[in-house]
């Protein structure tokens, strides 16, 4: 079946502009995650959505970052007033819902490469 998809694959923006990144999870996966990969910081968690529960936003680096998930499926990560340090690859993942003591396998999309000039 179809995997996790992300769009756009590449985005170049000027410092100070807002950007929106989109993620379509695997059908049937109720858990959705955003991560980013940058040269200096490696792979780091940003935010986690699970069903109708309040999202875990503990990884968002500043209040310029926000995310929403509409209808329990598609998610959009928004970065306002972009800065050069926001340049990174933004990765989305999805999984079945964690249950009891089990966290299920996460599957990653191809990422969006964001360059802030």
């Amino acid at each position, binding site marked *: 079946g179809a995997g996790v998809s992300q769009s756009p694959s590449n985005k170049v923006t000027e410092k100070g502009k807002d950007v929106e990144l989109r993620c379509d999870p695997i059908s049937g996966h109720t*858990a959705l*995650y955003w*991560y980013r*990969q940058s040269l200096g910081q*490696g*792979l*780091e*968690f940003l935010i*986690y959505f*699970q069903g109708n529960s309040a999202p*875990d936003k*503990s*990884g968002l680096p500043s209040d310029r970052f926000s995310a929403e998930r509409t209808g329990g499926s598609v998610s959009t990560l928004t970065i306002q007033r972009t800065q050069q340090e926001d340049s990174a*690859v933004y*990765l989305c*993942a999805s*999984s079945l819902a*964690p249950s009891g*003591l*089990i*966290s*299920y*396998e*996460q*599957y*990653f999309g*191809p*990422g969006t*490469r964001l360059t802030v000039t």
Partner: protein
Amino acid sequence: GIQVEQSPPDLILQEGANSTLRCNFSDSVNNLQWFHQNPWGQLINLFYIPSGTKQNGRLSATTVATERYSLLYISSSQTTDSGVYFCAVCGTSYGKLTFGQGTILTVHP
């Protein structure tokens, strides 16, 4: 939060050689995954292995949860195995994966 340490950071092999990559973690985990990041940046799932041993072709993995480490074995390496290998774990904060810094593997023909 949970800490993840991978070793070695870099590994250079001749085609056909075997290798072992290690992942140490600092606390109990309910998820451990190994990934291969290909040259285009895609994270390819290799193993979901919070405990026990699994094999898939030339690759196998073992996680000893009580001793807080996991090993990834690559046998008869091929040039297409080159790339970065990541270990990632999920501790008591369900869902969120914490990644190690990766092992950069280069396989020469």
